[in-house]
């Protein structure tokens, strides 16, 4: 990676990539590996995005860390990539082949002298909710977001930058790396194409009233499940009931929680069926005797992913129920959850009591709340409409919900589409 000099105010590149998740990283790496300059701008303190928070990928059940590691290696060794973190995109002006983009770099409060030695963290007295683990645990106010965080440097939660107690951290740092008075600054990027890879966020499960998330402790979501299963997660890889830390004996997966639903997300997020089946394998590994119940409308495992579904069907303790969960209630005696499901064809109602319920919530494009600053056609759900020739080039789950492999595929092609914009002019 090319270092960003503190006095630089204008940077030139072929392509600006907004969003440092797997899609954005891929666009940047593929571009740079062709020897073309690229800027990767991420609004969080480190790149890696949502895949960094996943425990395993379906169907191979391999750790995403493996792919992130090799991608970070590719970034570290490539002089054509500049990574900007804590970067916010301002005004974009110009036209295809010649854009000028204002980027605000918010203060990290830690400069590039940081060696990540950890002395500051040890003396830091302030704790805060750890958003990487969906608030399930705490981190210090000066922290490294996660084990694979890149750049591997500390960051100060801006809320506490002016807190008197942070001075202790400054004193503990042997390298003069902490600058609590660091100010935001603006740089201008001159680029030929702008790629928007801002990805997704999980649908807010508290909006699905009937499913009890937020009201019942033992109702969690699929993304929380990923963090619980991770060795570096809030429970060090143990999947336990939030209410009493008990082991799981019977778990229920609620598919299409808010998805394929006119009142929430009318579309299908394409990954949730496989994600839940993958979660069942986590449970199976920890609790070989636990029963798994999955309530679905259609099981969607396209292509070779069907093999994964077939494997699950062979598991005697995995019960598939065709039907949508209409309501979840809590059994006050034991905090178990009662899932009321209706068979979508017969109208028959069943009830199943489980000790943990996982809502398979869908993916909402981040562009639904924050449209790109350049006028770009979006669909009713906020996804960027691809290949319109107008506005930014969308890629990954900013265009449609997709799993990691599809994101990488899409992003690789988008890297070329972006370069070709420059070639044409």
């Amino acid at each position, binding site marked *: 990676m090319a270092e960003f000099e503190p006095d630089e105010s204008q940077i030139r590149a072929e392509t600006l990539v907004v969003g440092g998740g797997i899609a954005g990283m891929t666009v940047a790496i593929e571009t740079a*590996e062709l020897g073309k300059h690229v800027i990767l701008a991420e609004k969080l303190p480190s790149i890696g995005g949502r895949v960094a928070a996943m425990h395993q990928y379906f169907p191979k059940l391999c750790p995403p860390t493996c792919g992130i590691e090799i991608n970070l290696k590719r970034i570290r060794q490539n002089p054509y990539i500049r990574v900007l973190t804590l970067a916010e995109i301002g005004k974009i002006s110009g036209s295809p082949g010649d854009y000028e983009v204002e980027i605000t770099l918010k203060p990290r409060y830690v400069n590039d002298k940081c060696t990540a030695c950890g002395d500051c963290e040890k003396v830091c007295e302030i704790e805060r909710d750890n958003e990487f683990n969906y608030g399930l645990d705490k981190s210090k106010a000066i922290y490294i977001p996660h084990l694979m965080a890149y750049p591997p440097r500390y960051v100060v939660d801006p809320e506490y930058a002016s807190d008197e107690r942070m001075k202790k951290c400054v004193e503990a740092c042997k390298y003069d790396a902490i600058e609590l008075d660091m100010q935001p600054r603006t740089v201008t990027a001159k680029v030929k194409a702008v790629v928007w890879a801002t990805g997704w966020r999980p649908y807010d499960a508290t909006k699905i009233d009937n499913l009890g998330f937020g009201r019942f402790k033992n109702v969690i979501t699929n993304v929380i499940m990923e963090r619980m299963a991770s060795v570096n997660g809030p429970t060090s890889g143990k999947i336990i009931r939030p209410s009493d830390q008990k082991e799981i004996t019977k778990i229920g997966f609620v598919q299409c929680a808010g998805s394929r639903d006119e009142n929430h997300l009318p579309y299908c997020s394409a990954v949730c069926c496989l994600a839940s089946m993958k979660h069942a394998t986590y449970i199976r590994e920890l609790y070989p005797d636990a029963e798994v119940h999955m309530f679905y409308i*259609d099981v969607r495992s396209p292509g070779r992913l069907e093999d994964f579904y077939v494997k699950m069907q062979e598991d005697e303790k995995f019960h598939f129920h065709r039907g949508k969960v209409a309501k979840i209630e809590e059994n006050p005696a034991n905090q178990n959850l009662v899932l009321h499901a209706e068979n979508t064809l017969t109208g028959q109602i069943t009830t199943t009591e489980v000790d943990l319920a996982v809502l398979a919530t869908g993916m909402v494009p981040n562009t639904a709340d924050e449209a790109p600053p350049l006028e770009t056609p979006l669909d009713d759900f906020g996804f960027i409409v691809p290949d319109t020739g107008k506005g930014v080039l969308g890629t990954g789950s900013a265009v449609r919900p997709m799993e990691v492999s599809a994101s990488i595929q899409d992003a690789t092609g988008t890297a070329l589409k972006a370069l070709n914009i420059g070639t044409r002019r």
Partner: protein
Amino acid sequence: MDPKIGVYICKGCEIGRSLDIDQLIKEAEAGKHPVCKTHDCLCSKEAVNMIRQDIEGEGLNRIVVAACSNRVFPELFDFGKNVLTDRVNLREQVVWSHTPNDEDTQMLAEDCLRMGIAKVKHGEPPEPYTEETSKDIMVVGGGITGMTAAKAAAEAGYKVFLVEKETHLGGWATKFKKTFPKHPPYQQLEDTTHTELIEEISKNDNITIHTSTVIDKTSGQPGKFEVTVSSNGQKSTFMVGSIVQATGWVPYDPEKLGHWGYGISPDIVTNVQMEEMVNNGGIKRPSDGKPVESIAFLQCAGSRDQDHLPYCSAVCCRVSLKQARYVREQYPDAKIYIIYKDIRTPQQYEMFYAYAQEDEGLFLTKGEIAGVAKDDDGKIVVDVEETLLGEDIKIKTDMVVLATGMVPTTKVPDEILEEHQQALEETKEEEEAKTDDGKKAAEAAEPGAKILNLTYRQGTDLPTLKYGFPDSHFICFPYETRRTGIYAAGAVRAPMDFASGANDAYGAAMKAIQSVEAVGVGASVHPRVGDISFPDFFMQRCTQCKRCTEECPFGTLDEDDKGTPLPNPFRCRRCGICLGACPERIISFKNYNINQISQIIKSINVPDEFEEKPRILAFICENDALPSVDMAGLKRLQYNPYIRIIPLRCLGSMNSIWVGDALSSGFDGVLLIGCKKGDDYQCHFIRGSELANTRMDNVREKLTQLVLEEERVQLHELAISDYDKIPKIFDDFLEVIETVGPNPYKDM
């Protein structure tokens, strides 16, 4: 150039306060290297400048940075192509994971430093191998995917040869009337756009189109593929740098479907035939040309079926919904049935499904097809079981459409695969009858689909993983294949629709472009992108054992008549698996070779007294296992100080000579740690961990020769996220070694 080594030891991040740095620098100075220095913070700008000045002033060409992991800011310590640098990891792998100021920790640090020095001393900075190469790209297949790939590469300024076996371009798109909705509100069918695409690429000067053309032979390597094609009996030859294979799919053979009724009545057609019918004048009952009053679409005809295609073709649900729309447009009152296992309309295509459900004459039912029969009146009767209504139903219709799936053109017919298997067993028997020295039977080349007709020793086409789809790390690296410079796109890579194929084409074109550019400067493509080292063969000592030519996962090596390997450096991915395979040790990279690693082993101080200081040598994969050990350090997990780690490019590149070296020099045990093998392999070089496992046979042989216990060598699979398991793996192994006892070669 003789090595002139500079050794730099960092005292920051607890290193200085956990180790005796004076002792460490003495250890370095004992080697009489021109520069040996310490610094409080080696990653500071000032320190990096100091090293740069020393390189300049003292003419250093080897640098040892004893500080933190090479995963941290490697760009700071990149001193150009003439300087070989090694990072000795004193931080994560020594002081953060071991007791500070302890004798064992100090010994570990000193060994690590000596190992780093030995590594640069016995290695050389690599120089690239270059030749004049072609940057032109061949696209095979003129369907939507192939045409888009040609367009994508041509737009980027590359010359493209587009080869299509049919008389015209367009592929399946020419046979289909419409395609699914790609644009909001995702309800209306759209045009296939192939006509515009054909026009566009026909006008493009960068694209040469060869229709009615098949490939007779593709020889050579990336940058220098020599392609011989035939067109109407005329042969011609051209040179390309890389290849995009977009040869698409064929429909699953409906004749094989049995109870689905294909063939019992002309009124039972496949979805492809339906599409052709729509395109050729509209939907009529094939038996009598009468209008259609009712029609049933039977989903998963042969798909998601272990007896036919176990996978899902991903498009058929949408195809039937689309064809239902054709029916509705022509027959406003027709009854339309769709019988499915699951309706699969992912993403925004759900809106297409939702819109279709508004059609009151469309009946969607989940169920299994028990049988399809022809009634006395000529109509078709479909028996449906296991419907959710809890009852079996019969549907009587004018017509049935079987939603058959897609088979990649790379799928080798089962008959040929069986023949190959048989031939393989026969050769094996013959070989076994002839030789009794346990030498592996010569492996016949893999049968290929005969599309590219590669002249590779390992087979004619892309090696496949399952169901005929090309082998790759399909999650993280969807465009990787096992033939460097050849990239699959579209339905040949995975079942997909036109829009996805067009999108896929850009990705594959990108990889093809990267490949020609990388080859042009002698650099590797994925996963060791940019690596300019390459294997050198000392042919005089080759015994033609063929291990390297058989084992290379990427088919890099061909063979002459005698079995001598013929290297093709541009096909090479630099994993070093050939180096691990070679019993004569004639294969080496300048910066990674047998002698270098043997010297590193020699540089480790093995104490004579076992009781107090056992020593274990660990060969570990640098891609996953090594970062995992780092993470153990980042998490401050404490582990045994008796382990000495040598990272390998891939565990498959482990040569059993090193295990022999270690054991004969007194190491009590050897650990081999690599990635997961098998169907869900995690090896970056696809076959490496599998091969490491087979190398264990050679290792056992070595152990027998040395009269040592088998337990002294253990192989482990470790995922990068398994860092929490590392302390236990080390401790458990030391326990085993304690039971087996000290290595008797220790004091010899």
